[in-house]
């Protein structure tokens, strides 16, 4: 049914992703397909790494942990953005193309007032990508 599942992760807020992560693992087992974890960072030093490499290393060990814990195949991909605050959606859309994922599993917050002004990440990915999108409420 699916060939690759893509899961956008924010390493700084893993706590909010628990449900989405286990959903992705379950789906990966069910369809026997690999999961690719995608993280967006900037070239400037941030809390998660002084360079994009450092960030990439953290993301790839995160992917390995998930593989061990869930018994699935995983990989990771780091995306570098000039302005992550505003460009996350576009970066993720690009990642869908690059990874060839046909199912995106992502966490979302409860829609609030601000979503009328700025659509949520999940909403935008669903509207602009050819992949199926599973938005998991936290």
């Amino acid at each position, binding site marked *: 049914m699916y060939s690759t599942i893509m899961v956008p992760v924010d390493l700084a807020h893993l706590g909010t992703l628990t449900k989405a992560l286990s959903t992705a693992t379950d789906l990966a087992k069910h369809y026997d397909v690999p999961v690719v974890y995608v993280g967006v960072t900037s070239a*400037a030093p*941030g*809390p998660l790494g*002084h*360079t994009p490499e450092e960030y*990439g290393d953290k993301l790839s060990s995160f992917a390995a942990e998930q593989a*061990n814990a869930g018994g699935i195949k995983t990989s990771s*991909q780091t995306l570098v953005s000039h302005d992550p605050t*505003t460009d996350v959606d576009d970066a993720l859309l690009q990642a869908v193309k690059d990874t060839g994922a046909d199912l995106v599993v992502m966490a979302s917050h409860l829609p609030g007032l601000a979503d009328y002004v700025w659509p949520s990440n999940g909403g935008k990915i669903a509207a602009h990508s050819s992949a199926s999108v599973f938005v998991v409420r936290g």
Partner: protein
Amino acid sequence: MTDQSTDQGIPEPEGASDIIQTDYEIGQDNIEAQIGPFGLDIHNPVFLISGVSIIAFVFYALALPDQAGEFFGWLRPALTSTFDWFFLSAANIFVLFCLILIVSPWGGVRIGGKDATPDYSYPGWFAMLFAAGMGIGLMFFGVLEPAYYFGTPWGDAPLGVVRPFDENGMLIEANVEEARRMALAATSYHWALHPWAIYAVVALALALFSYNKGLPLTIRSAFYPIFGERVWGWTGHIIDILAVFATLFGLATSLGFGAQQANAGLEHIYGIPNNVTVQVILITAITAVALISVVRGLDGGVKILSEVNMVLAFLLLIFVLFAAGAGTILSEFAAGLVAYTQEVVPLSNPFGREDTGYMQGWTSFYWAWWISWSPFVGMFIARVSRGRSVREFIICVLLIPSFVCVLWMAVFGGAAINDMIANGADSMVKANVIDNYSPELSLFAMLESLPLAAITSTLGIILVIVFFVTSSDSGSLVIDTITAGGKIDAPLPQRVFWCTFEGAVAIVLLIGGGLTALQAMVISTGLPFTVVLLLMCIAIVKGLRSEPR
């Protein structure tokens, strides 16, 4: 169970660089909170103290307008006159420092690591650094300054050059050539190497310590080699707060004055009333466009607007060039370059000068002004300069903008001086710059001496406004990053807050008075920042020494 780590998303392997090992974690002092629908991620205490002290100073200027006006009205000239030698010497040091870096082996160090590739292409990069760094000044001073030096009767002629007008305002033929040559040289001196060297020092220090050393992208990081771990404490807080303070008030007061200039232009051309209401509408419109730009982000907003800006400015430049006679003006440009080269040494001599009116009233004022803007412009340039080698960086931040500025001044100043020579007492430029000093109209007066004035003046006003937007949006990004402790992925509402706050401060000061007082205050911060910049030069050398080349 495999881990096929693919890292195609990373621009290129970064290669060797020399990361500073520190226990400080970026964002460790930050407060993350959720207020209603808005997420926050702010540095404690930089965000709060900056915001509160800005509000306090606005209240001070509004509550005690005379006292504030008197104090800062005294402080600014007192500083630029007393410390003229210091400002001039420091600026000379920055120019020499940059020129030495170009030819030194350190020029080969690459920002972002040995194998980093540039984040932006040359045109986009250049448009952004130019639009943030100078923009509006070119519109305001491009005609004013050369015309002023050419005809000034107030005894502040550069290097005491002869006057081309006699007491009745008639032209003295014999003095024209020399006065014109010196006017272009003296203007170019304020817009070419020195200001860009000031920006380059700040930008290089921040880029190096952030992209190569792994420290957060914020002003304090450049001081790591000097203060060590103490930069994460109050020493660093104060540096960052000062930078936010100077940037926000610098932008807000310029926004206020810019609205007045645009309004003067609108009145001049279309007869739109010149009053506070129109100016408040202008500030609101500028802030609204800047808001759209910051919400669209660095690539989708700021970069595109900067490029639009460059195209418009280039069109105006080409028009003035041909309308005023390309042959004459281009020879003017060549003459301007020669004059600048000949006079830059005497003009930048800090000691034993007799033309103190020019040296203190203009040069020292300008240096303090550029320096007070340098944290903002420098940090913005740093952010977009990853992947360039130090040599490329300095050539593009120092030499090419200098060249463009000399060209701009030769074209606009040359056309203005031509008008003063050709039309003598009837010259509109002379009327607005010398006879009846109204600097905000100088550009429009020059455009009126050329054909199609209605179209070009409108283009001029649009440019003034767009230049403000491009300063305002990049400034908001910079303040947002500093007040988020160097995180560049802080939640969107924060940059929206700073952009709006800046417009609000401008409107309050415009209505309540206090623009002049607070601008004088900002320029006064140039003095402490000069010391800061000198320390940055030392930090750059220390930082470059350990980098692989």
